[in-house]
């Protein structure tokens, strides 16, 4: 099965498993250290993750807020490298699809083709490059398509219809809808505009629509599901949680949170 097919199957499996949306927790690779991040990846799976987004530490993450920025810097200061960070995918990639989140310069430095080959080697199913908008993406899309990898694009609330249409047509795996205008990070409330944003995204693509940025409680995850999301991405809340405890306790902490988010996505009245 190709990466694209694995991602599609994971969204479908979540539905047939009684959940209204797939759960995709974000993991900062090599944070707090390589071994612990492998254990956290497994804890995510054990806690009910349907897919995992694996972040590769980068020195200058422009789309990220303070929590993920700091975690990436901490990982780099502890000696994280791209190759080893990608290997963390192997821990879980035979259990759930892993979508790698990586900034453009790390991809370009290695070369698109070589980087895509590495994704295949570690069993990854897809790639998100948050600073590679439509205009800059054709070569990366071709490299991913050749290997059955899903290049997942992002759209924002302010993305105009025409542009949304072009992005939606090129989306592979799923369409990553940014729920709020801003960087990644926890926010108190979901934007009331979310149902509209999701409906607009869905109208322009054939792939599932996942929502991320700012979702930090199970209640918000449930609200996103009810607003029409096929998938819910949880990032900063989890990264913060694993940083707040000793590394030895981080996997259990992560698992408990993922279980809570997963439980919030069970469709009411449809216990599985």
């Amino acid at each position: 099965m190709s990466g694209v097919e694995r991602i599609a199957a994971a969204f479908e499996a979540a539905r047939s498993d009684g959940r209204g949306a797939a759960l995709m927790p974000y993991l900062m690779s090599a944070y707090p250290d390589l071994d612990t991040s492998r254990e956290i990846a497994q804890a995510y799976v054990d806690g009910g993750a349907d897919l995992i987004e694996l972040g590769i530490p980068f020195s200058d993450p422009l789309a990220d807020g303070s929590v993920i920025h700091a975690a990436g810097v901490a990982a780099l200061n502890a000696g994280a490298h791209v190759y080893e960070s990608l290997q963390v995918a192997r821990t879980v990639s035979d259990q759930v699809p892993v979508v790698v989140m990586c900034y453009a310069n790390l991809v370009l430095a290695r070369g698109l083709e070589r980087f895509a080959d590495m994704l295949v080697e570690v069993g990854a199913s897809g790639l998100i490059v948050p600073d590679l908008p439509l205009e800059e993406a054709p070569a990366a899309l071709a490299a991913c398509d050749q290997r059955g990898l899903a290049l997942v694009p992002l759209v924002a609330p302010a993305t105009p219809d025409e542009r949304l249409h072009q992005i939606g047509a090129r989306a592979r795996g799923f369409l990553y809808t940014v729920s709020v205008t801003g960087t990644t990070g926890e926010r108190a409330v979901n934007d009331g505009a979310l149902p509209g944003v999701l409906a607009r995204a869905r109208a322009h693509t054939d792939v599932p629509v996942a929502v991320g940025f700012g979702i930090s409680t199970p209640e918000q995850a449930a609200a996103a599901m009810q607003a029409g999301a096929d998938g819910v991405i949880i990032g900063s809340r989890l990264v913060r949680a694993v940083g707040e405890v000793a590394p030895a306790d981080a996997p259990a902490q992560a698992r408990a949170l993922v279980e809570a988010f997963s439980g919030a996505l069970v469709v009411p009245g449809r216990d599985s």
Partner: protein
Amino acid sequence: MSTTLPHRFGPYGGQYVPELLMPALTELEAAWIEASEDAAFQARLTSLLNDYVGRPSPLYLAERLSEVAGHPVYLKREDLNHTGAHKINNALGQALLAKRMGKTRIIAETGAGQHGVASATACALLDLECVVYMGTEDIRRQRPNVQRMELLGATVVGVDAGARTLKEAVSAAIRDWVTNVADTHYIIGSAVGPAPYPVIVRELQRIIGEEARAQVLEKAGRLPERVIACVGGGSNSIGIFIPFVDDADVQLIGVEAAGEGVETGRHGAPLTVAGRAGVLHGSYSAIMQDEDGQILEAHSISAGLDYPGSGPEHAWLRDQGRASYHAITDQQALDAFALTARLEGIIPALESSHAIAWTLANPDSAIDVVCLSGRGDKDLAEVLDKLGIAGPAS
């Protein structure tokens, strides 16, 4: 009438930014094209540049410096602009544009503080809210400019990430813009960033070269052999270079920061070193990076050159062989700073001192035009400290 601006210079440039910013970049490009063709906008900008900034800035034959250099050295006196540097040319133009676009809030990054002061000044004049991001290390070494910005009504936000210098300030400003893009315009201070910024900044700074070219023809009766300017991101340099680009006999010399020496790795000279190009702050250009593509910290005594990236058009001018790039160490810049003060009664910015140092170190020329991009009052504390440690400069 053009509807778009070039987004690439050869392979360099582009728009490597989060999707959230793409509508804002499209809006900015359209607004810039409209403003460029609007006579009233241009008249207002010209009027402010003349009567508020004090343009045209003089081209001054520095005779005593010329004696030491061994050839005539003309200084383009951007240090005499209001706020003391070339940065005001760009800040004022972009602030006017923001006002025209209906934006109420301005953000800016600053290294040496000159762009922050220029932005704060333009915002005071045009009644715009102004937030300036500045690395806490730069806040330490450029204290007078912090005080000036605050006096002008701007909020200075210290950035405590990484090396606490210009790179982190740009990143923080971009994150703010991602969050507040609806009412906020980001006045980027150099010819860097995603398209259309490198073109906008170049067009607002090309007045330096247009004036200098006419002035040198009038004063010397000929074009210069070399035009020399310092390069951090590269705004004063692209501004003075561009009007000379078609003059094939005029050499264009960009001077980067060698810091403690290019060979030590502690420098800010990505164009000179010419390693693998990469993406920093939204564009593909010459950058300092490790094998993985992690961005490296730059180092320079001069906060304005302490940057691991460079404007994409410079990388293209270099590859085409139209401009060449060289690096000057912290110590050479300090020596040129002290020498210019004593010989000419001019205290140049440490950034500009790199360009002066290069003309002094490379005497074989008929006539040089050097961009004195800013004044050095802001650098006094840092320089006196360093000169004290290094012993009296000769």
